[in-house]
Protein backbone atom coordinates (compact mmCIF):
# COMPACT_ATOMS: atom_id res chain seq x y z
CA UNK A 1 0.00 0.00 0.00
CA UNK A 2 2.77 2.40 1.03
CA UNK A 3 4.69 1.76 -2.21
CA UNK A 4 1.58 2.41 -4.26
CA UNK A 5 0.95 5.66 -2.41
CA UNK A 6 4.54 6.78 -3.07
CA UNK A 7 4.18 5.97 -6.75
CA UNK A 8 0.94 7.91 -6.93
CA UNK A 9 2.63 10.89 -5.23
CA UNK A 10 5.55 10.74 -7.71
CA UNK A 11 3.23 10.65 -10.71
CA UNK A 12 1.19 13.57 -9.30
CA UNK A 13 4.42 15.59 -8.83
CA UNK A 14 5.52 14.82 -12.39
CA UNK A 15 2.12 15.83 -13.74
CA UNK A 16 2.27 19.05 -11.72
CA UNK A 17 5.69 19.84 -13.19
CA UNK A 18 4.44 19.13 -16.70
CA UNK A 19 1.36 21.25 -16.09
CA UNK A 20 3.54 24.15 -14.96
CA UNK A 21 5.62 24.19 -18.16
CA UNK A 22 2.49 23.59 -20.25
CA UNK A 23 0.90 26.54 -18.53
CA UNK A 24 3.95 28.68 -19.29
CA UNK A 25 3.70 27.80 -22.99
CA UNK A 26 -0.06 28.13 -23.06
CA UNK A 27 -0.18 31.63 -21.58
CA UNK A 28 -2.45 33.73 -23.78
CA UNK A 29 -1.32 36.90 -25.51
CA UNK A 30 -2.93 39.25 -22.97
CA UNK A 31 -1.39 37.52 -19.98
CA UNK A 32 2.03 37.38 -21.68
CA UNK A 33 1.88 41.13 -22.35
CA UNK A 34 0.95 41.67 -18.71
CA UNK A 35 3.94 39.58 -17.64
CA UNK A 36 6.30 41.55 -19.87
CA UNK A 37 5.04 44.90 -18.60
CA UNK A 38 4.91 43.75 -14.96
CA UNK A 39 8.39 42.22 -15.21
CA UNK A 40 9.80 45.39 -16.77
CA UNK A 41 8.26 47.53 -14.02
CA UNK A 42 9.71 45.24 -11.32
CA UNK A 43 13.13 45.26 -13.02
CA UNK A 44 13.07 49.07 -13.35
CA UNK A 45 12.04 49.56 -9.69
CA UNK A 46 14.74 47.24 -8.38
CA UNK A 47 17.28 48.63 -10.84
CA UNK A 48 16.54 52.15 -9.60
CA UNK A 49 16.92 50.94 -6.01
CA UNK A 50 20.32 49.49 -6.91
CA UNK A 51 21.41 52.76 -8.52
CA UNK A 52 20.27 54.75 -5.46
CA UNK A 53 22.12 52.35 -3.16
CA UNK A 54 25.26 52.69 -5.31
CA UNK A 55 24.97 56.47 -5.31
CA UNK A 56 24.59 56.58 -1.49
CA UNK A 57 27.69 54.39 -1.08
CA UNK A 58 29.63 56.50 -3.58
CA UNK A 59 28.81 59.73 -1.79
CA UNK A 60 29.37 58.39 1.74
CA UNK A 61 32.82 59.99 2.07
CA UNK A 62 31.56 63.42 1.00
CA UNK A 63 28.65 63.11 3.43
CA UNK A 64 31.09 62.08 6.17
CA UNK A 65 33.30 65.14 5.60
CA UNK A 66 30.28 67.44 5.51
CA UNK A 67 28.83 66.01 8.74
CA UNK A 68 32.21 66.22 10.52
CA UNK A 69 32.44 69.88 9.60
CA UNK A 70 28.83 70.44 10.73
CA UNK A 71 29.81 68.79 14.03
CA UNK A 72 32.71 71.24 14.42
CA UNK A 73 30.31 74.11 13.79
CA UNK A 74 27.84 72.77 16.37
CA UNK A 75 30.61 72.67 19.00
CA UNK A 76 31.95 76.12 18.09
CA UNK A 77 28.43 77.58 18.29
CA UNK A 78 28.22 76.19 21.82
CA UNK A 79 25.24 73.96 21.01
CA UNK A 80 26.93 71.07 22.83
CA UNK A 81 30.09 70.22 24.73
CA UNK A 82 33.22 68.29 23.77
CA UNK A 83 31.94 64.92 25.01
CA UNK A 84 28.79 65.29 22.87
CA UNK A 85 31.06 66.40 20.01
CA UNK A 86 33.07 63.19 20.37
CA UNK A 87 29.91 61.05 20.53
CA UNK A 88 28.54 62.67 17.36
CA UNK A 89 31.95 62.24 15.71
CA UNK A 90 31.91 58.48 16.36
CA UNK A 91 28.30 58.20 15.20
CA UNK A 92 29.16 59.96 11.93
CA UNK A 93 31.97 57.46 11.22
CA UNK A 94 29.63 54.53 12.00
CA UNK A 95 26.85 55.95 9.78
CA UNK A 96 29.29 56.56 6.92
CA UNK A 97 30.50 52.97 7.23
CA UNK A 98 26.89 51.79 7.08
CA UNK A 99 26.28 53.97 3.99
CA UNK A 100 29.22 52.26 2.29
CA UNK A 101 28.24 48.78 3.46
CA UNK A 102 24.51 48.99 2.67
CA UNK A 103 25.40 48.64 -1.01
CA UNK A 104 26.40 45.01 -0.39
CA UNK A 105 22.95 44.23 1.06
CA UNK A 106 20.60 46.32 -1.05
CA UNK A 107 22.37 45.80 -4.35
CA UNK A 108 22.17 42.04 -3.93
CA UNK A 109 18.47 42.27 -3.01
CA UNK A 110 17.96 44.54 -6.03
CA UNK A 111 19.82 42.04 -8.21
CA UNK A 112 17.38 39.31 -7.15
CA UNK A 113 14.46 41.65 -7.89
CA UNK A 114 15.81 42.64 -11.30
CA UNK A 115 16.41 39.00 -12.21
CA UNK A 116 12.90 38.03 -11.07
CA UNK A 117 11.47 40.82 -13.21
CA UNK A 118 13.58 39.78 -16.21
CA UNK A 119 12.48 36.15 -15.80
CA UNK A 120 8.84 37.32 -15.94
CA UNK A 121 9.67 39.25 -19.12
CA UNK A 122 11.41 36.19 -20.55
CA UNK A 123 8.40 33.97 -19.81
CA UNK A 124 6.23 36.56 -21.56
CA UNK A 125 8.42 36.43 -24.69
CA UNK A 126 8.56 32.62 -24.61
CA UNK A 127 4.77 32.60 -24.50
CA UNK A 128 4.73 34.92 -27.52
CA UNK A 129 7.09 32.58 -29.37
CA UNK A 130 4.86 29.59 -28.55
CA UNK A 131 1.78 31.34 -29.94
CA UNK A 132 0.89 29.55 -33.18
CA UNK A 133 -1.39 32.34 -34.45
CA UNK A 134 1.42 34.88 -34.32
CA UNK A 135 3.56 35.85 -37.33
CA UNK A 136 6.57 33.43 -37.57
CA UNK A 137 9.03 36.33 -37.74
CA UNK A 138 7.57 37.84 -34.59
CA UNK A 139 7.70 34.45 -32.91
CA UNK A 140 11.38 34.10 -33.83
CA UNK A 141 12.09 37.62 -32.61
CA UNK A 142 10.32 36.88 -29.31
CA UNK A 143 12.37 33.73 -28.90
CA UNK A 144 15.62 35.62 -29.58
CA UNK A 145 14.60 38.29 -27.06
CA UNK A 146 13.80 35.62 -24.46
CA UNK A 147 17.20 34.02 -25.06
CA UNK A 148 18.88 37.42 -24.79
CA UNK A 149 17.14 38.14 -21.51
CA UNK A 150 18.10 34.80 -19.99
CA UNK A 151 21.70 35.47 -21.08
CA UNK A 152 21.60 38.82 -19.25
CA UNK A 153 20.11 37.13 -16.17
CA UNK A 154 22.86 34.50 -16.25
CA UNK A 155 25.58 37.10 -16.61
CA UNK A 156 24.26 39.24 -13.73
CA UNK A 157 23.82 36.15 -11.55
CA UNK A 158 27.14 34.52 -12.25
CA UNK A 159 29.43 37.56 -12.32
CA UNK A 160 30.16 39.75 -9.32
CA UNK A 161 29.92 42.96 -11.29
CA UNK A 162 32.22 45.17 -13.31
CA UNK A 163 34.36 47.79 -11.61
CA UNK A 164 36.04 50.61 -13.44
CA UNK A 165 38.74 52.72 -11.80
CA UNK A 166 40.17 55.79 -13.43
CA UNK A 167 43.46 56.89 -11.94
Amino acid at each position, binding site marked *: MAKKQEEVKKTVKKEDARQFWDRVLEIDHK*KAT*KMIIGGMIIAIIFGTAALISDSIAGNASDWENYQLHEN*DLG*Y*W*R*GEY*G*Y*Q*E*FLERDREIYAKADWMRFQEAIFENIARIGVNAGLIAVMIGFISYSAEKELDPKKRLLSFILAALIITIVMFTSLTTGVTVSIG
Partner: protein
Amino acid sequence: MFYLVKNKLLKIGVVIGLIFIIFAPMVGGLFETLQVKKDKDRTISEESSVSFREVAAYEITVKRNQKYIIKFSVYSINVSASLKIFGKGFFDSEFQKNATNAPQTVTGKYFLVSQPSWAYDPSSTEDSLTVVTCDQDDFYYIEFMGDGQSVNDLIWNEPGDYVITVYGTNSFANNTNVTFNIEIFKSGPSEVIKKIFSYTGWAIIIITCLVISIKISKKWRDTD
Protein backbone atom coordinates in the same frame (compact mmCIF):
# COMPACT_ATOMS: atom_id res chain seq x y z
CA MET B 1 -0.61 52.25 -12.71
CA PHE B 2 -3.76 54.40 -12.53
CA TYR B 3 -4.96 52.13 -9.77
CA LEU B 4 -1.86 53.05 -7.76
CA VAL B 5 -2.31 56.79 -8.35
CA LYS B 6 -6.00 56.71 -7.42
CA ASN B 7 -5.55 54.46 -4.41
CA LYS B 8 -6.49 56.31 -1.21
CA LEU B 9 -4.93 53.72 1.09
CA LEU B 10 -1.56 54.13 -0.63
CA LYS B 11 -1.68 57.91 -0.34
CA ILE B 12 -2.73 57.89 3.32
CA GLY B 13 -0.27 55.13 4.27
CA VAL B 14 2.72 56.71 2.54
CA VAL B 15 1.92 60.21 3.85
CA ILE B 16 1.50 59.00 7.47
CA GLY B 17 4.65 56.87 7.17
CA LEU B 18 6.66 59.81 5.79
CA ILE B 19 5.33 62.09 8.55
CA PHE B 20 6.59 59.62 11.16
CA ILE B 21 10.00 59.33 9.45
CA ILE B 22 10.40 63.11 8.98
CA PHE B 23 9.29 63.93 12.52
CA ALA B 24 11.48 61.22 14.13
CA PRO B 25 14.62 63.40 14.50
CA MET B 26 12.54 66.45 15.47
CA VAL B 27 10.57 64.69 18.23
CA GLY B 28 13.71 62.85 19.36
CA GLY B 29 15.59 66.16 19.48
CA LEU B 30 13.07 67.52 22.00
CA PHE B 31 14.12 64.80 24.44
CA GLU B 32 17.88 65.09 23.85
CA THR B 33 18.33 66.50 27.36
CA LEU B 34 15.94 66.62 30.29
CA GLN B 35 16.27 69.30 32.93
CA VAL B 36 16.82 67.87 36.38
CA LYS B 37 17.38 71.02 38.40
CA LYS B 38 17.39 74.76 37.86
CA ASP B 39 18.57 77.01 40.68
CA LYS B 40 18.74 80.69 39.81
CA ASP B 41 20.38 82.95 42.36
CA ARG B 42 20.84 80.17 44.90
CA THR B 43 22.46 81.60 48.01
CA ILE B 44 24.62 79.66 50.44
CA SER B 45 26.79 80.79 53.31
CA GLU B 46 30.51 81.44 53.13
CA GLU B 47 30.75 78.65 55.72
CA SER B 48 30.33 76.24 52.82
CA SER B 49 34.04 76.57 52.01
CA VAL B 50 35.02 75.20 55.41
CA SER B 51 32.24 72.74 56.23
CA PHE B 52 30.71 69.96 54.14
CA ARG B 53 27.44 70.48 56.02
CA GLU B 54 27.01 73.96 54.52
CA VAL B 55 27.67 73.20 50.85
CA ALA B 56 24.92 73.22 48.22
CA ALA B 57 24.47 69.56 47.27
CA TYR B 58 22.62 68.09 44.27
CA GLU B 59 22.31 64.32 44.18
CA ILE B 60 22.33 62.67 40.77
CA THR B 61 22.22 59.09 39.52
CA VAL B 62 24.28 58.27 36.45
CA LYS B 63 22.95 55.33 34.45
CA ARG B 64 24.69 53.32 31.73
CA ASN B 65 25.87 55.59 28.90
CA GLN B 66 24.16 58.56 30.51
CA LYS B 67 25.64 62.02 30.60
CA TYR B 68 24.88 64.98 32.85
CA ILE B 69 25.30 68.54 31.64
CA ILE B 70 25.85 71.26 34.23
CA LYS B 71 25.65 74.97 33.43
CA PHE B 72 27.31 76.80 36.27
CA SER B 73 27.63 80.57 36.55
CA VAL B 74 28.10 83.47 38.95
CA TYR B 75 26.93 87.02 38.26
CA SER B 76 27.31 88.59 41.71
CA ILE B 77 30.13 90.88 42.66
CA ASN B 78 32.80 89.67 45.15
CA VAL B 79 31.56 86.08 44.93
CA SER B 80 33.81 83.16 44.12
CA ALA B 81 31.95 79.82 43.89
CA SER B 82 33.53 76.43 43.21
CA LEU B 83 31.94 73.24 41.92
CA LYS B 84 33.08 69.70 42.64
CA ILE B 85 31.48 66.30 42.08
CA PHE B 86 31.88 63.45 44.54
CA GLY B 87 30.71 59.86 44.71
CA LYS B 88 27.71 59.52 47.03
CA GLY B 89 29.58 57.29 49.49
CA PHE B 90 32.55 59.65 49.65
CA PHE B 91 30.28 62.66 50.14
CA ASP B 92 28.36 60.93 52.96
CA SER B 93 31.56 60.03 54.80
CA GLU B 94 32.92 63.58 54.42
CA PHE B 95 29.56 64.92 55.61
CA GLN B 96 29.86 62.72 58.72
CA LYS B 97 33.51 63.65 59.40
CA ASN B 98 32.85 67.36 58.74
CA ALA B 99 36.55 68.14 58.75
CA THR B 100 37.56 71.81 58.57
CA ASN B 101 38.22 73.13 55.03
CA ALA B 102 37.36 69.69 53.61
CA PRO B 103 35.28 71.07 50.67
CA GLN B 104 38.38 72.89 49.44
CA THR B 105 40.96 70.18 50.14
CA VAL B 106 39.33 66.92 49.04
CA THR B 107 39.56 65.97 45.38
CA GLY B 108 36.41 65.30 43.37
CA LYS B 109 35.70 63.27 40.25
CA TYR B 110 36.87 64.44 36.83
CA PHE B 111 34.43 66.19 34.52
CA LEU B 112 34.84 67.78 31.11
CA VAL B 113 34.73 71.55 30.68
CA SER B 114 34.19 72.94 27.17
CA GLN B 115 35.20 76.45 26.19
CA PRO B 116 34.64 76.53 22.43
CA SER B 117 36.54 79.05 20.40
CA TRP B 118 36.18 79.59 16.65
CA ALA B 119 39.91 80.11 16.44
CA TYR B 120 40.87 76.63 17.65
CA ASP B 121 40.20 73.00 16.94
CA PRO B 122 37.57 71.50 19.32
CA SER B 123 40.17 69.18 20.88
CA SER B 124 42.24 72.13 22.11
CA THR B 125 39.40 74.02 23.81
CA GLU B 126 38.36 71.49 26.42
CA ASP B 127 39.76 70.36 29.73
CA SER B 128 39.04 67.60 32.23
CA LEU B 129 39.08 69.01 35.74
CA THR B 130 38.06 68.10 39.28
CA VAL B 131 37.05 71.64 40.23
CA VAL B 132 35.92 74.84 38.52
CA THR B 133 35.80 78.21 40.22
CA CYS B 134 33.42 80.90 39.04
CA ASP B 135 34.00 84.57 39.72
CA GLN B 136 31.76 87.41 38.64
CA ASP B 137 30.28 86.83 35.14
CA ASP B 138 32.00 83.48 34.69
CA PHE B 139 30.18 80.59 33.04
CA TYR B 140 31.13 76.92 32.76
CA TYR B 141 29.63 74.23 30.53
CA ILE B 142 30.35 70.92 32.22
CA GLU B 143 29.75 67.33 31.08
CA PHE B 144 29.92 64.49 33.58
CA MET B 145 29.54 60.73 33.08
CA GLY B 146 30.88 59.26 36.31
CA ASP B 147 34.67 59.35 36.14
CA GLY B 148 37.61 60.48 34.10
CA GLN B 149 41.26 61.53 34.05
CA SER B 150 43.33 64.57 33.21
CA VAL B 151 45.52 62.56 30.81
CA ASN B 152 44.18 63.20 27.30
CA ASP B 153 41.20 65.03 28.89
CA LEU B 154 38.97 62.01 29.13
CA ILE B 155 35.74 61.25 30.92
CA TRP B 156 33.95 57.95 30.78
CA ASN B 157 30.73 56.36 31.92
CA GLU B 158 30.68 54.92 35.42
CA PRO B 159 27.10 54.40 36.59
CA GLY B 160 26.28 55.21 40.19
CA ASP B 161 25.13 57.89 42.62
CA TYR B 162 27.02 61.16 42.75
CA VAL B 163 26.69 64.51 44.47
CA ILE B 164 27.36 67.84 42.78
CA THR B 165 28.55 70.29 45.43
CA VAL B 166 29.02 74.04 45.36
CA TYR B 167 30.90 76.05 47.96
CA GLY B 168 32.30 79.54 47.89
CA THR B 169 33.49 82.76 49.47
CA ASN B 170 32.49 86.40 49.40
CA SER B 171 35.40 88.84 49.47
CA PHE B 172 33.23 91.71 50.78
CA ALA B 173 33.77 92.01 54.54
CA ASN B 174 30.11 92.63 55.50
CA ASN B 175 28.57 90.00 53.24
CA THR B 176 28.85 86.26 53.71
CA ASN B 177 26.41 85.30 50.94
CA VAL B 178 27.59 83.20 48.02
CA THR B 179 25.08 83.48 45.17
CA PHE B 180 25.36 81.31 42.05
CA ASN B 181 23.27 79.85 39.25
CA ILE B 182 23.18 76.19 38.33
CA GLU B 183 21.24 74.20 35.74
CA ILE B 184 21.52 70.41 35.63
CA PHE B 185 20.41 68.37 32.63
CA LYS B 186 20.59 64.66 31.93
CA SER B 187 20.65 62.92 28.56
CA GLY B 188 17.10 61.89 27.66
CA PRO B 189 15.55 59.03 25.69
CA SER B 190 15.93 60.82 22.35
CA GLU B 191 17.57 57.86 20.54
CA VAL B 192 14.78 55.47 21.60
CA ILE B 193 12.08 57.95 20.53
CA LYS B 194 13.83 58.56 17.19
CA LYS B 195 14.01 54.81 16.54
CA ILE B 196 10.36 54.19 17.55
CA PHE B 197 9.15 56.98 15.24
CA SER B 198 11.26 55.99 12.23
CA TYR B 199 10.55 52.25 12.61
CA THR B 200 6.80 52.99 12.90
CA GLY B 201 6.99 55.13 9.75
CA TRP B 202 8.79 52.45 7.75
CA ALA B 203 6.43 49.76 9.09
CA ILE B 204 3.38 51.77 7.95
CA ILE B 205 4.84 52.26 4.45
CA ILE B 206 5.87 48.61 4.09
CA ILE B 207 2.50 47.29 5.35
CA THR B 208 0.66 49.67 3.00
CA CYS B 209 2.76 48.50 0.04
CA LEU B 210 2.16 44.84 0.96
CA VAL B 211 -1.62 45.33 1.29
CA ILE B 212 -1.73 47.14 -2.06
CA SER B 213 0.39 44.56 -3.84
CA ILE B 214 -1.96 41.84 -2.54
CA LYS B 215 -4.94 43.85 -3.78
CA ILE B 216 -3.33 44.40 -7.20
CA SER B 217 -2.45 40.72 -7.60
CA LYS B 218 -6.05 39.82 -6.70
CA LYS B 219 -7.38 42.31 -9.24
CA TRP B 220 -5.10 40.93 -11.94
CA ARG B 221 -6.24 37.40 -11.15
CA ASP B 222 -9.90 38.44 -11.28
CA THR B 223 -9.51 40.08 -14.71
CA ASP B 224 -7.95 36.90 -16.20
